[in-house]
């Protein structure tokens, strides 16, 4: 393993993040606060408890997931797309590194940034609602796993994208709807039966449900099913990335 190279990629990517630290932090804090004001205070005051938890607290795990997933994807996809776009990818391809090292560097940095944002949102949430975390270790594990798996997905999108429109396409058209329909702001059990069945095909449902279980000890789907789902998703992304580098798809002629 070329750890020096991995560290170089990682720290180079992180430097980009810290260069714009203000907007990196302010924007998620602001949007989360807005969600709390609108959903928590304005609408939440008219909604009774959901699954024994106040509505304001109930949406916290979903809100964190929403930001973490979006951030992980956009950071990772941009991270690998940008060198392709400006042509600096030649250096990566001519360096004595293998695909695993490149992925660890880029995905690691994107996941770290997303994790950072997730933690900031959690801290912000404490200012608005009372929350206690039932399974802190499980919560952290879920958060990290989500960051990594969606950073992997973002990496795939970044390799695939041929222009900036395509870079936005998948997050906008697929990921955002899946996250919103994944139970970020409601419990799946609140939906009509048909929609409940359809929801079970949405992988994000398992993530949010598992994450919510770590907070409140109860969930829409069994925790093991959640773990299995995210494990499968991560494995699938890894397999695709392995194939990309094996064939040189979209990167090596």
């Amino acid at each position, binding site marked *: 393993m*070329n750890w*020096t*190279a991995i*560290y*170089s*990629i990682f*720290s*180079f990517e992180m*430097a980009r993040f810290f*260069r714009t630290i203000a907007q990196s932090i302010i924007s998620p804090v602001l949007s989360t606060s807005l969600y709390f004001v609108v959903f928590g205070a304005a609408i939440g005051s008219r909604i009774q408890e959901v699954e024994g938890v106040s509505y304001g607290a109930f949406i916290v795990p979903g809100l964190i997931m929403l930001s973490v997933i979006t951030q992980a994807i956009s950071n990772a996809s941009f991270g690998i797309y*940008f060198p392709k776009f*400006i*042509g*600096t990818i*030649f*250096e*990566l*391809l*001519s*360096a*004595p*590194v293998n695909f695993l090292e490149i992925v660890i560097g880029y995905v690691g940095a994107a996941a770290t940034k997303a994790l950072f944002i997730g933690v900031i949102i959690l801290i912000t949430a404490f200012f608005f609602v009372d929350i206690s975390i039932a399974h802190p270790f499980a919560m952290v594990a879920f958060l990290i796993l989500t960051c990594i798996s969606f950073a992997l997905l973002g990496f795939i999108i970044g390799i695939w994208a041929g222009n900036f429109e395509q870079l936005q396409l998948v997050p906008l058209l697929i990921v955002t709807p899946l996250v919103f329909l994944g139970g970020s702001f409601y419990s799946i059990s609140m939906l009509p039966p048909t929609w409940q069945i359809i929801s079970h095909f949405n992988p994000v449902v398992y993530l949010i449900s598992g994450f919510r279980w770590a907070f409140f000890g109860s969930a829409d789907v069994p925790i093991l099913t959640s773990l299995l789902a995210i494990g499968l998703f991560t494995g699938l992304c890894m397999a695709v990335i392995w194939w990309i580098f094996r064939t*040189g798809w979209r990167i*090596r*002629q």
Partner: protein
Amino acid sequence: MPTIVDIKNLRKSYDGGFEALKGVNLEIEEGEILALLGPNGAGKTTLISTICGITTATSGTVTVSGHDIITGYRETRSMIGLVPQEINLEPFEKVINTVRFSRGLFGKPRDDAALEKILRQLSLWDKKDSQIRALSGGMKRRVLIAKALAHDPRVLFLDEPTAGVDVELRKDMWEIVADLKADGVTIILTTHYIEEAEAIADRVGVIAHGELLLVEDKAKLMARMGKKQLEVQLTKPIKTIPKALQSDALTLSKDGTTLVYSYDTRAERTGITKLLADVADAGLVLADVMTRQSSLEDIFVDLVQEDAA
């Protein structure tokens, strides 16, 4: 000189069926400056990209210092630095950071003293904290060289290093190349500019249509292929060459004022004495006499035309 890069029967075809390299064989000697000359689309960049790992060959092998570029990619790539043709740099990054990144990416531990030496050598030290987008085109090219040198490569590929560069900077670039050669770095550069190859290369290779037409010591090449011409200017134009003078080597200019005589400098007899005597015997009066030696450019044009014919 031992061989450092050994290219055997290298072929590259693209999906559309286009053959960019048609079985290239080339041995690059350690410590030399090899100039690869060729028109656009000749396969120069494909050759370099394949050695560096950016494109994969269809068949054939390349070894660098005995290591295969596929199975021993870590060893070979650690030894190679690449300065690409296009200026590909992160616009918002500082010079020092991007050079430091390159060193780390190639697996070398951080060494600020080494980077300072490189940046000073390239007159970039004052600019180390500047954002790349604030630099001039020439400075950006230097940054690319600094990045390529950041991991102390033994072989440096310069893909058209002086394309679109002004005369002064081109001279600077040649000096940098000479310094690197003095440090023992093997340098392969591609260029359109014949004068560049003539000025700095030890050996010259000519590529056209994916084939290496020749590789030869520059001086030998010029001597072998170098023709010399004697131009005899007459005071009064003539319509035809007088019979006594007629030979394959002698031609008359269109306006009839100049006789052009081609000869080989290394031949036992150049025939100049006889020619001048014959000119005088024919009653022609000389206005001026001058000689001209063919440049590498003439040789190159001849070769490429021969190949196309």
